[in-house]
């Protein structure tokens, strides 16, 4: 055996001590931790853990290295239960010590009043945890996980154990903790006390549940609005996305496939309100359609498009590509031999499609539906742009917090409703599909050739997908043109003025001067999204791997929290981050880091979903074979699973990057003047009525993102399966 069983343990102990000695312990205000590395032996803010503890009197910090040292004792024992005791003991002691002291001692001494009365005022304070604290805590968490593995949990697998525990810790800290803090607001009465009746009263509100619209009244309750809209959107996106995937993978020739994929990607790489803006230029009061109707038939322009119709159309545009990405991976993974088998059994192509192909797509369809539903109920950008008077839960939450009402209790109650809706659909999906598992990329090579789709279906696909794509193009064209004209609806002369305002570059005395007003937000957005995308994809796929390939105690709870992030609308996540992370021990408000973290946990479920669907199609024996060949779990992940998961990886990377670039709802609370993002900048411009600059910025954003996404796809490449190409099929010739 060339692998020492304790190698990983030694490594992580080293990491822990290094974190204590080499990095500044606390979060650095105004600058990044790596700029102050030379000062870690001095200064009260920039010092490392050791100096903070001994020279600055923060003795409780020694609990960290103490825990590491206790765990280190475990090294003298062979791998087994005895070693586990030391590892667990040391790890937990360190974690509890540092975590506990972090929550109890804040920026003004003791954090809780009862501590003041018990021990008297504390002269020494501490700030938010920084790089050093993060590394030490991480090492302690990993070592505790090793301890669990050595006790026999997680089948003794160190990698799985530490992955599960680290992901759980992340989810707990960045989803469960802030959201619980925000949702608990629903139980707070106006006077600040706790009462169950508070939430009951708020939920029973008629603004939420009335059904007036069915009886000819003005408007239904906001809960019903959201539900109807979400069901329609989920259904529509699933159907359209599946059609596009089938057309792209099975019908269209190679020449059409490329453009088809690019066009289908367009709505993903644009901020959601671009579609909204384009639709307004088309159907709004000053839009082309209304102007034409007025000119031709003398119909007075109205705001008929605003409302549920507008939101539905905009959401279909915005979320169909997501369904397309999910379904595309699933269609690619279908084993062609299954369809061939059906045809051998005398099913014609139509019957084969409806009895074999479509049922095999079922897990993917359910996923696409779930994603569409949850995207719709959490969507904020479209309802605010084209919703008009039609209110949905996410906008109501926003106005409850930001607007004149400032009713945190109502916002929390509405957030409860959203969460319950999402969980309901989730439960439904699980109940219907159960543990169905269609393994279609198996360890045995599949030598089949995908079946051409039945003619009727192909005509239907052509008749639906191509017009839809054309319509998409028209909407984008309008948004594009909008950036080049003086004022839409009044003055259609060509101008570059908007571009120069936003993206002007001048040659100054010291080289290039980024003179445009938009450069700052552009660079920030690119930087933060670029950091968050690989993290999101990595953690998302890791969680998907853990959920679909490993079995451990508490797996259901783990899955619940991982998918909970889905159900949390951006507005709620943004607000809960502000509430939870503006005081030590985790003090992040105002930094770029909080935006990265927000991006990450907001987009995580998509990575998880894409990964889970892909894992369902990978034969488990492949991982097991790799493990038997003495690859570690981590090696298996990188050499076997990742190469086979490339479509899912691309989807996760592209999608998390694009969403980070284009998200509005969550980050609108988190941006600062220093960390302004492209979307918030554009929203600001739209708010000022400055449509030209907004649309010009959108155009540039789309260009930049398409370049980056093309680069991602080129870098990651296609999956190599060694299937026979369709072109190699024997050509049937009729006897002459």
């Amino acid at each position, binding site marked *: *055996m*060339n*692998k020492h*069983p304790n190698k990983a343990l030694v490594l992580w102990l080293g990491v822990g001590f290094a974190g204590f000695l080499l990095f500044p312990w606390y979060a650095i205000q105004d600058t990044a931790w790596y700029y102050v590395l030379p000062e870690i032996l001095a200064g009260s803010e920039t010092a490392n853990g050791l100096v903070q503890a001994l020279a600055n009197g923060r003795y409780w910090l020694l609990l960290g290295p103490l825990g590491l040292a206790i765990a280190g004792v475990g090294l003298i024992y062979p*791998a*087994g*239960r005895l070693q586990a005791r030391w590892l667990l003991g040391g790890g937990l002691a360190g974690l509890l010590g540092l975590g506990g002291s972090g929550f109890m001692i804040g920026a003004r001494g003791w954090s809780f009043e009862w501590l003041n009365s018990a021990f008297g005022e504390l002269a020494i304070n501490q700030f938010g945890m920084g790089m050093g604290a993060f590394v030490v805590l991480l090492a302690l968490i990993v070592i505790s996980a090793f301890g669990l593995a*050595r*006790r*026999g949990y997680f*089948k*003794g*697998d160190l990698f799985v154990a530490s992955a599960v525990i680290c992901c759980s810790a992340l989810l707990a800290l960045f989803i469960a903790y802030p959201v619980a803090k925000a949702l608990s607001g629903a139980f707070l009465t106006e006077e600040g006390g706790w009462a169950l009746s508070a939430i009951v009263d708020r939920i029973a509100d008629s603004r939420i549940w009335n059904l007036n619209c069915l009886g000819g009244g003005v408007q239904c309750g906001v809960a019903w609005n959201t539900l109807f809209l979400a069901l329609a959107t989920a259904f529509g996106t699933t159907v359209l996305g599946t059609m596009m995937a089938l057309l792209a993978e099975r019908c269209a020739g190679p020449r059409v496939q490329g453009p088809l994929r690019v066009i289908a990607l367009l709505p993903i790489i644009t901020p959601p309100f671009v579609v909204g803006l384009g639709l307004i230029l088309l159907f709004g009061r000053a839009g082309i359609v209304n102007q034409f109707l007025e000119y031709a038939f003398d119909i007075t322009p109205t705001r008929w498009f605003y409302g549920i119709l507008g939101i539905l159309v905009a959401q279909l545009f915005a979320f169909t590509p997501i369904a397309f990405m999910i379904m595309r991976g699933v269609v690619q993974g279908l084993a062609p031999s299954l369809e061939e088998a059906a045809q051998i059994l005398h099913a014609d192509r139509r019957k084969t499609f409806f009895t074999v192909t479509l049922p095999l797509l079922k897990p993917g369809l359910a996923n696409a539906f779930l994603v569409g539903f949850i995207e719709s109920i959490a969507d904020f950008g479209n309802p605010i742009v084209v919703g008009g008077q039609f209110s949905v839960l996410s906008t109501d939450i926003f106005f409850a917090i930001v607007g004149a009402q400032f009713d945190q209790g109502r916002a929390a109650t509405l957030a409860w409703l959203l969460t319950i809706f999402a969980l309901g659909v989730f439960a439904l999906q699980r109940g219907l599909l159960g543990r169905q598992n269609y393994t279609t*990329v*198996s*360890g*045995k*090579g*599949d*030598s089949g050739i995908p079946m051409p789709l039945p003619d009727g279906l192909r005509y239907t696909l052509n008749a639906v997908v191509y017009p839809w794509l054309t319509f998409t193009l028209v909407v984008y064209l309008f948004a594009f043109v909008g950036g080049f004209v003086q004022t839409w609806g009044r003055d259609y002369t060509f101008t570059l003025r908007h571009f120069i305002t936003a993206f002007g570059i001048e040659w100054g005395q010291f080289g290039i001067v980024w003179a445009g007003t938009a450069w700052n937000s552009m660079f920030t957005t690119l930087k933060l999204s670029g950091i968050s995308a690989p993290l999101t994809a990595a953690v998302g796929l890791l969680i998907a791997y853990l959920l679909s390939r490993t*079995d451990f*105690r508490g797996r259901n709870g783990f899955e619940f929290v991982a998918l909970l992030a889905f159900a949390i609308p951006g507005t709620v996540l943004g607000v809960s981050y502000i509430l939870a992370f503006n005081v030590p021990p985790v003090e992040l408000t105002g930094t770029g880091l909080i935006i990265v973290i927000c991006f990450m946990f907001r987009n995580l479920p998509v990575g998880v979903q894409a990964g889970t669907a892909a894992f369902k199609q990978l*034969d488990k*024996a*492949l991982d*097991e*074979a*790799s*493990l*038997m*060949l*003495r*690859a*570690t*779990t981590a*090696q298996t992940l990188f*050499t*076997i699973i990742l*190469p*086979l998961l490339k479509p899912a990886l691309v989807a996760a990377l592209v999608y998390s990057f694009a969403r980070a670039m284009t998200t509005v709802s969550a980050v609108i609370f988190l941006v600062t003047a220093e960390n302004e993002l492209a979307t918030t900048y554009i929203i600001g411009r739209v708010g000022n009525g400055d449509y030209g600059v907004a649309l010009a910025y959108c155009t540039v954003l789309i260009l930049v993102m398409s370049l980056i996404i093309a680069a991602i796809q080129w870098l990651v490449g296609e*999956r*190599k*399966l*060694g*299937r*026979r190409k369709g072109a190699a099929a024997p050509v049937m010739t009729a006897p002459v």
Partner: protein
Amino acid sequence: MTFGVEFKNITKRYGTDPAAPFAVKGVSFGIEKGTLVTILGPSGCGKTTVLRMISGLESPTSGQIFMDGRDVTTLGPAERNVSMMFQSYALFPHMNVVENVMYGLRMSGVPKEPARARAVETLRNVGLVGYDERMPSELSGGQQQRVALARALILEPQILLFDEPLSNLDARLRRDMREEIRAIQQRLKLTVAYVTHDQSEALAVSDVIIVMNDGLIAQSGTPQEMYEYPGSEFVAGFMGEAMLFPGESGADGSVKLGPLTIVPKQKVEAGAVKVAVRPEAWQINRDGGGVAGTLRKRSYLGSFFEYTFDTPLGNIFVVSPDLTNVLDIGTDVGLSLANHGVSVVKAG
């Protein structure tokens, strides 16, 4: 003595639900070093679960596993010196043949060129030359099988596991591969655990056979012991298609089966017993004598005939190597027993 693999009171239950049924209900056995042990049983008897617990892919609910005297119960597959060949072969579809085979070496840190050389060498040992750059999907079943075997062998494991390795092959290839596996096992002195549901395969390759039924070991022993001295009705029926007839054991140790009297090789208590008779143990007496029977069905299988007789004991299935004097349908004969292929087990 220390065993290559030893199970002590192993139980296994899937999932964390304490109410879930046991897949393995308390199994203890040892596999001596350098021997090939077959775990045989009908589907669902727990044999694959046992194999996966040897591999480390599953961990037992209770009990201990030892390898060479070392407790490996809590260790994962990478920390045991074990390799395995999968029923579906599980060849990595995105790697070509030689990449598949050298995978294990690369993962253990062997540089690329030596690893490739050894992979080619191992492929030659299993009789696959000239397919190095093919993808698994471009190989036939037998070739995929050899790749999988080479991949499992390349790490020179102490213990090699086979999960129904021949179930996807045709009969001819099955015998070739079976013999090849046996030859490689003996040449490299490997300790092998081999799971199958095919008793003839088990008889042909094994040093020891363990028959499992319903999560428990029904019986274990050498192929001869298992075939000739089955300890229970189940084993007798499973090993070699023996037919079971109710009999009566006397105080003197002899057993009465209808008009026939048998002196069993193992001692049985007096009272009701079952007599297990293999189809080749019946002798056909054209002039009568023994159990009277009328020929009802006949099939020609090339090297022998299969007859089914209607008798007072019920239908009796007989295999006859006599290809010259063939019986006609409807012939009345007498059936008696040879002194092999007959065993007596407890009734129940």
